[in-house]
């Protein structure tokens, strides 16, 4: 699924990486626990989270995740966006809840990482 489709499905706002929306993501994980995300062996999946802080970006950086979708219209500050830009990431934000976000994307065909 293209990131552009994800943006449309969950009515997301793109906060950085607008020029990379044609990238395909094959799978996603939804978690607010970064410790869990760090145990995943796979790379290049979409991280859906309600944990909106610098450490969620750092966790994505270490885990080779290039796209993050923040749920519940969380406030993503400039420091986070700058760190995302430094790492060539796509950062998005949706007004949908975690449940609604995951439900819509799963129904549209986005696979879980496991």
């Amino acid at each position, binding site marked *: 699924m293209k990131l552009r489709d994800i943006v449309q499905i969950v009515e997301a706002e793109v906060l950085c990486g607008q020029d990379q929306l044609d990238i395909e993501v094959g799978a996603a994980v939804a978690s607010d626990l970064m410790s869990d995300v760090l145990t995943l062996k796979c790379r290049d999946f979409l991280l859906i989270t309600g944990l909106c802080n610098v*450490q969620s970006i*750092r966790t994505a950086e270490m885990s080779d995740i290039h796209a993050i979708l923040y749920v519940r219209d969380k406030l993503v500050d400039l*420091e986070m966006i700058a760190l995302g830009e430094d790492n060539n990431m796509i950062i998005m934000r949706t007004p949908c809840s975690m449940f609604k976000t995951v439900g819509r994307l799963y129904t549209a065909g986005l696979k879980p990482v496991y």
Partner: protein
Amino acid sequence: MEFKFHVEGGDFTSAGTASSQIKKVLKQINIDPIIIKRVVVALYEAEVNIVAHAHHGDIKVKITPQQVYIRLDDEGPGIENVEKAMQKGFSTASSKVREMGFGAGMGLPNIKENADIFTVRSEVGKGTTLEITISTVNNG
């Protein structure tokens, strides 16, 4: 190549700076991305542990053609029971650490999972030393 970093306890904003710099270096010297991920995940978990539990700490990273060797020395409360701390799910983390998305008792087990050689030495009331070695030659 050798790198040194200082980490302050409680400074969650800077946590990950060392891991980020090491990741850039490993990419520049064309290390296998799967090995890079193992190194930086292990280092990041250990870096976050210093921020979460210690007063301060020092990180040394030595990169040779065969391996990445990481040593983290912190001054802090130490680990009372290392064997217990190595069990998945055991945690003494504060609520602040949990709010940051960590403290689920998965850090040390995940470092062990990613390392080829991993040792923990700790003295209660003094601090903890972690040594992590990951081979860059054999992906095993």
